[in-house]
């Protein structure tokens, strides 16, 4: 019989007789003190200062930690951390740092320091020395690092060089308006421009309100794409996470980079026009977590709008880079959320979501909110969990309103001007697992739902829950494509389970669904209600039980967004093919999706009128950019293993490709200047499951931990 615990750990379990049954140790107070500092520097950016875990990071203190580690040993904890942390750089720290970190984690779970120091081979059953009781110094930690001078003014940390075997680098960070711009004759952005963008512009996240990621430019075609060449490149700041969308208007490209750096670049030359480093500095000199990126900026009037992972919303003058106004999405309250999905501008309102919010133990909920684009004053706020008395308020198994958490909005919405309705996807309820959540068999509305809101008031028009009672971190938060078929107005979306959905966007009525990748999470699907049915062992899950999830948290589909090629009624969908086994606290081990022969990447095309699959191809590396389709009948897409390619939208055949410096990651766009069409794409690093899973599984792929750039491609000059 398969011994799952041993299978999952891949190491032999220490026999019970060998386990020391002791009340204290095996670590010292000095190790705890050193580990506390190392934790702040190396771990807190993902696992949080209070060790409660983040969007893609497990809790390291309390019941969530003990659920996974109670029966495992201190040596196994050392091996786990040494082998896999910091994320993507396992083994990069010295042995003392790892042992100190283990000591601090044990302390954080109620273990008591003793006289003997912890060593990598010290094997004591964790449940024998720790009980998950979080000491006050961990639950309410002091600030991680002193602030001074200019760094303090922006919240940036003062760096300090450290010698040692781990070879740390010091990140030099200077905040402020480092280069003031003097852009003349800038054309202010109007509502009309956002409703009908100029062909050569890319003024918002998915270019148009309907979310298509489609460019009407047709100069680069299936016939000439083979001659595509690099026109210019621009290096982006390193550190943090890059999944950005280059926003283009009036011949200017606006970029959002690590450290909340915003730059304006001349699209003709690649010259920098202005730069404002809003700060704080990225929390790591290397690739960051899934909570550090800014996927998109917004334009309106003479301003460019930036929402940051620290929950600040800025208006900058698009001509100079100067700050016009700044406001806090969370009214200055620390630790209750931030923004990574970017903003959308509707009727002079900046509308934005919230992520890393609504965590267990907090009484603050996640929300979508709107701000006056001229002043930054908040207009409205919509909580993304259904409370008692609201539609869906009875779907939380009787939980108190203050305990209804999750439903983050980490992807910007779309908008139908005719219906005056904005559409947003939400992520799962928190905690992920329903057995820990307390929602029983409740559907947990409005988590993992499509929300249709009035952009002027924030009032809910309708909602549709795509994954009632979801429990395995399978978000349905991603882009909502607005596609018409004659008089029928539809909304299409796809989430991590890999189900492609079609809804009536006037009423929210379910119309159709299509399975795109292998799925063993759902045992069936009620086609009348549009409701998936969980596999029984998942529905009945227990805290100390490993569960298989195909797809896993990488998706199916994840943030690399779909593109709708309207001329051929084709939706192009980036997909991933991996599975996980997941334990109650979120611990995961990864494996290939059955039937895929190890191909993690998949690009598939569907005709939206009848959901017919048109073509698919797969490859070893997953795709880590959004898809971009153009009037030249091309689809552009980039992948984990550094390849950016052009595909014939009619056949799926690759027509051209180029190898870039590191992972091709972000949201490619097409624009024109002086009558010529260009393609812009970014290389980038950092992020959650879409980066984590292939980093571990594709052992033959080697990437540089640096090399973030924007690359602009075009046809040869005549």
């Amino acid at each position, binding site marked *: *019989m*398969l*011994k*799952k615990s*041993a*299978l*999952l*750990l*891949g*190491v032999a379990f220490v026999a019970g007789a060998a386990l020391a049954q002791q009340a204290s140790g095996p670590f010292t107070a000095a190790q705890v003190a050193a580990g506390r500092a190392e934790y702040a520097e190396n771990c807190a950016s993902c696992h949080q200062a209070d060790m409660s875990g983040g969007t893609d990071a497990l809790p390291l203190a309390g019941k969530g930690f003990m659920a996974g580690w109670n029966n495992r040993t201190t040596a196994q904890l050392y*091996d*786990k951390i*040494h*082998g*896999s942390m910091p994320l993507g750089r396992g083994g990069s720290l010295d042995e003392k740092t790892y042992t100190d970190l283990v000591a601090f984690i044990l302390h954080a779970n109620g273990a008591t320091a003793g006289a003997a120091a912890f060593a990598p081979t010290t094997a004591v059953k964790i449940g024998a020395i720790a009980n998950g009781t979080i000491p006050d110094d961990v639950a309410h930690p002091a600030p991680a690092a002193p602030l001074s001078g200019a760094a303090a003014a922006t919240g940036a940390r003062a760096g300090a060089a450290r010698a040692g075997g781990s070879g740390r680098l010091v990140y030099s960070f200077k905040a402020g308006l480092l280069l003031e711009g003097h852009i003349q004759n800038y054309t202010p952005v109007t509502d009309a421009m956002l409703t009908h963008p100029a062909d050569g512009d890319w003024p918002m996240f998915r270019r148009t309100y309907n979310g298509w990621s489609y460019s009407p430019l047709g100069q680069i075609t299936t016939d000439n794409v083979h001659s595509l060449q690099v026109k210019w490149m621009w290096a982006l700041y390193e550190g943090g996470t890059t999944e950005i969308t280059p926003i283009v208007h009036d011949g200017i490209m606006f970029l959002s980079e690590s450290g909340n750096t915003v730059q304006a670049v001349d699209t003709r030359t690649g010259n920098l026009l202005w730069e404002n480093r809003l700060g704080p500095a990225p929390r790591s000199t290397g690739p960051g977590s899934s909570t550090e990126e800014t996927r998109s900026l917004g334009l309106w009037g003479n301003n460019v709008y930036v929402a940051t992972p620290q929950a600040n919303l800025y208006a900058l003058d698009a001509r100079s880079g100067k700050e016009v106004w700044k406001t806090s999405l969370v009214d200055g309250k620390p630790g209750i959320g931030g923004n990574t999905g970017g903003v959308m501008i509707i009727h002079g309102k900046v509308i934005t979501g919230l992520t890393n919010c609504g965590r267990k133990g907090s009484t603050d909920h996640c929300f979508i909110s709107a701000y006056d684009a001229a002043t930054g004053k908040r207009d409205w706020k919509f909580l993304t969990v259904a409370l008692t008395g609201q539609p869906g308020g009875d779907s939380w198994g009787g939980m108190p309103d203050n305990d209804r958490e999750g439903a983050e909005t980490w992807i910007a919405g779309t908008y139908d001007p005719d219906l005056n309705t904005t559409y947003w996807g939400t992520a799962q309820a928190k905690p992920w697992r329903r057995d820990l959540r307390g929602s029983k068999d409740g559907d947990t509305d409005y988590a993992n739902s499509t929300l249709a809101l009035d952009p002027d008031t924030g009032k809910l028009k309708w909602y549709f829950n795509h994954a009632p009672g979801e429990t395995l971190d399978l978000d349905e938060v991603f882009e909502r494509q607005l596609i018409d078929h004659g008089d029928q107005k539809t909304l299409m979306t796809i989430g991590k389970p890999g189900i492609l959905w079609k809804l009536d966007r006037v009423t929210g009525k379910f119309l*159709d*669904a*299509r*399975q795109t990748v*292998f*799925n*063993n999470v759902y*045992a*069936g*699907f*009620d*086609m009348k209600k549009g409701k998936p*049915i969980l*596999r029984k*062992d998942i529905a009945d899950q227990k805290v100390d039980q*490993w569960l*298989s999830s*195909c797809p896993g948290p990488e998706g199916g589909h994840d943030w690399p967004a779909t593109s709708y090629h309207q001329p051929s009624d084709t939706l192009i969908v980036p997909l991933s*093919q991996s599975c996980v*086994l997941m334990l109650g606290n979120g611990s*995961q*081990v*990864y*494996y*290939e*999706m*059955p*039937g*895929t*022969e*190890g191909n993690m990447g998949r690009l598939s095309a569907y005709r939206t009128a009848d*959901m017919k*699959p*048109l*073509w*698919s*191809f797969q*490859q*070893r590396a997953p795709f880590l950019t959004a898809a971009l389709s153009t009037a030249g009948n091309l689809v552009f897409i980039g992948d984990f293993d550094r390849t950016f390619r052009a595909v014939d939208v009619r*056949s*799926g*055949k690759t027509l051209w490709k180029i190898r870039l410096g590191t992972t091709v990651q972000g949201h490619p766009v097409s624009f024109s200047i002086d009558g010529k069409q260009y393609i812009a794409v970014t290389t980038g690093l950092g992020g959650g499951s879409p980066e984590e899973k292939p980093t*571990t*599984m594709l*052992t033959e792929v080697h990437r540089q931990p640096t090399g973030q750039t924007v690359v602009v491609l075009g046809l040869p000059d005549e």
Partner: protein
Amino acid sequence: MLLSKSFALSVVLALMAGQPALAADKYITNLGPMPLDDASRANIQGRGDVSATLDGRKLSVSGTFKQLPSPATAAHLNISLATGVPGDKIFDLTVTQAPSGTVSGDVTLSAKQAAAFRTGKLYVQIDSQKAPDGTIWGWLLPDHQIVGADVPQQDHWFIPQLDTPSR
């Protein structure tokens, strides 16, 4: 339970080359690494190809494997709740005691096991010295075309999918 036309179609799509799943007697799998993380992945690697033919209740399994980080020590046929879900060993197979080699066996399935086989719930697992609780595995699925990387497939091409729509 109501099943959609889409999910019902998934069954059809699973039938590579138009062969009905319930009538197929030859099943195949590509063996790949078992669940791993950064700490264990050095010992959990390798690939293989296995085919299985069911004649009545008699199942004949044969295949090859390669690139294990340490010599194979055992191989077995397992039964699981669903495709992709780890399960329990039901039969031992014969395996070359080396990082590369062959795996084979002839077993007689019960009616329940035969039904599980036909619905994608049996898998082959090979253990090795450094990963004794499992190194590579693969679920046996109806014979289908192995599509290489970067090769577009048209229309109703789909990975083998037996379980979701049938339960």
